[in-house]
């Protein structure tokens, strides 16, 4: 049986450690492997000198860890990653290659799939099998719909590729093996990269730490204009809350970047998160869905934010928020 291959990823800021999204991909592959009766193998790309990570991966229930080492693999480049993985995938002959939908994977996976004459199904949130073929669930239209997707007829022997949305599968569901999986060393010969990458860096240090705030009022593009922030500040004051925002609000400079919630901002889990005029794109949800109580105020009943909300008010925020400020003041 051809294996399912998981491409593991090292942590961006701590390359000696695994990106936990790799374990989510292993858990997903193991689950699908049970449906398809296919073994799971994991791939690790590392520079010559590195060590330890392959043994860590081998703790999981895998048929093998494919360990490719080469000096060029010290730092990421799409050219190098794609060329190395073409060699590995060609040798391993998997039916399916699963990758976590990280920034890095988004950068090279479409190139890799295309070079191998294969298709890539991105941002997958669910897996199943129909007649021995994998089926995938993925969001479309910004999460307003989910789609069941499969590969078009493939050339005999060509693998399929899929990337898994971060958080859609549980890292702690990755099964460990009774004994360590064998580690197979693979030789790869990537070409020189056409790209020269600089150091990874952060912009100015964050001045506000929203992770400690017990109550957060978070505002999105539904507030229409920056002058309406005054109304939102009043609401925040009435709740004793910190003010936060979706990305477009910070991109536009209406609030500073360190008040952005989401995959490229802060991740928070307050006891109360009030989302006002926020649609609930996945990149926003990952930053706040762990909140204890979530309230959404949005005029669109189909807005995905309602999928994670405990309390939902479908209505015009410009009517609801003033009424809410009044009710809170009356109640205190």
């Amino acid at each position, binding site marked *: 049986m051809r294996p399912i291959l998981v491409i593991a990823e090292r942590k961006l800021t701590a390359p000696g450690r695994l990106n936990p999204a790799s374990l989510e991909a292993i858990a997903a592959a193991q689950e699908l492997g049970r449906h398809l009766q296919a073994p799971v193998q994991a791939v690790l790309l590392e520079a010559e000198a590195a060590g330890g990570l392959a043994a860590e991966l081998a703790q999981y229930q895998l048929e093998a860890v494919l360990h490719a080492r080469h000096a060029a693999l010290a730092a990421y480049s799409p050219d190098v990653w794609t060329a190395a993985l073409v060699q590995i995938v060609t040798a391993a002959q998997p039916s399916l290659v699963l990758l976590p939908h990280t920034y890095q994977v988004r950068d090279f996976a479409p190139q890799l799939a295309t070079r191998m004459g294969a298709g890539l199904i*991105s941002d997958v949130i669910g897996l199943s099998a129909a007649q021995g073929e994998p089926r995938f669930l993925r969001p479309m239209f910004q999460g307003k719909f989910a789609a069941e997707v499969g590969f078009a007829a493939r050339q005999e022997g060509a693998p399929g590729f899929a990337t898994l949305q971060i958080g859609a599968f549980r890292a702690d569901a990755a099964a460990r093996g009774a004994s360590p999986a064998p580690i197979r060393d693979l030789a790869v010969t990537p070409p020189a990269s056409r790209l020269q990458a600089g150091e*990874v860096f952060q912009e100015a240090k964050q001045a506000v730490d929203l992770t400690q705030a017990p109550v957060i009022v978070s505002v999105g593009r539904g507030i229409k204009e920056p002058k309406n922030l005054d109304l939102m500040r009043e609401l925040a004051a009435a709740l004793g809350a910190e003010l936060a925002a979706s*990305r477009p609000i910070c991109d536009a400079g209406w609030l500073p970047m360190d008040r952005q919630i989401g995959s490229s901002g802060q991740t928070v889990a307050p006891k109360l998160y009030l989302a006002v005029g926020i649609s609930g794109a996945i990149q926003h949800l990952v930053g706040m869905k762990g909140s*204890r109580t979530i309230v959404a105020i949005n005029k669109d009943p189909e807005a995905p934010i309602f999928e994670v909300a405990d309390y939902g008010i479908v209505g015009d925020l410009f009517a609801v928020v003033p009424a809410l400020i009044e009710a809170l003041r009356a*109640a205190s």
Partner: protein
Amino acid sequence: MKILVCLKQVPAKDAPLKLNQAATWIREDVSFETNEPDAFALEAALRLKEAHGGEVVALTLGPARAAQVLREALAKGADRAIHLDAGEAAAGAPPLDAFAIAEAVSRAIAGESYDLILTGLQSDDAGYGQTGVILAELLGAPHATIIMQVEPAGERRIKVKRELESGNFQFVEMPTPAVLTIQSGINKLRYATLMGIKQAKNKPLARMTLEEIGASAGLNRQLVHRLFVPSKSKGTTLISGSAKEQAAALVAHLRNDAHVI
């Protein structure tokens, strides 16, 4: 620099979307607009041209209605436009996937030599997030994704700022021709001026059909079997009534049930 910008027309942000009969795509009787990251890609191209000279060509693939994104791009300052007309069959039939779109674009621009090709990082409809990268691979050009800054870096080279996870960034240099996928918020979008709208009428807008370039949904590498409204994972308590009633009920819930205020 000669810059190609690929733009897609997608349903407007606040359009109430409904599925078609077969539940394979949405019904098309909604309003459409330029995909947001693509608008930022166009803006980035126009700014590069204004600072360093050159030409900006706007391209879209879609049915007749999609030509509107090109007219807007021309009004904002693009020099000319190319419409890969997917025909009316595109309404209802399975749309082209990221691979088929990239293949069509690569065929349409064969013979032209662009220094830079910009796309949005993903579209608000299918959300594949792949078209630009696949196009780069088909053209044999280097690429970089989720770009927050672009500038020339000497003869036939560019320097870009990539957005990486958890607030990290990285500068990357590469030779041109190159393909970049642009992140929303990289710049501030301009509006078309009246003058621009007037001038746009005289700018060239070339049209090619998919048949002419030998592209179709037959090249798709993925099949959408069906779309559906996702089931709610949480039992959301929806609060109805007037704004005043909603506010009072919410405060009561937060105090008495959730105990958070």
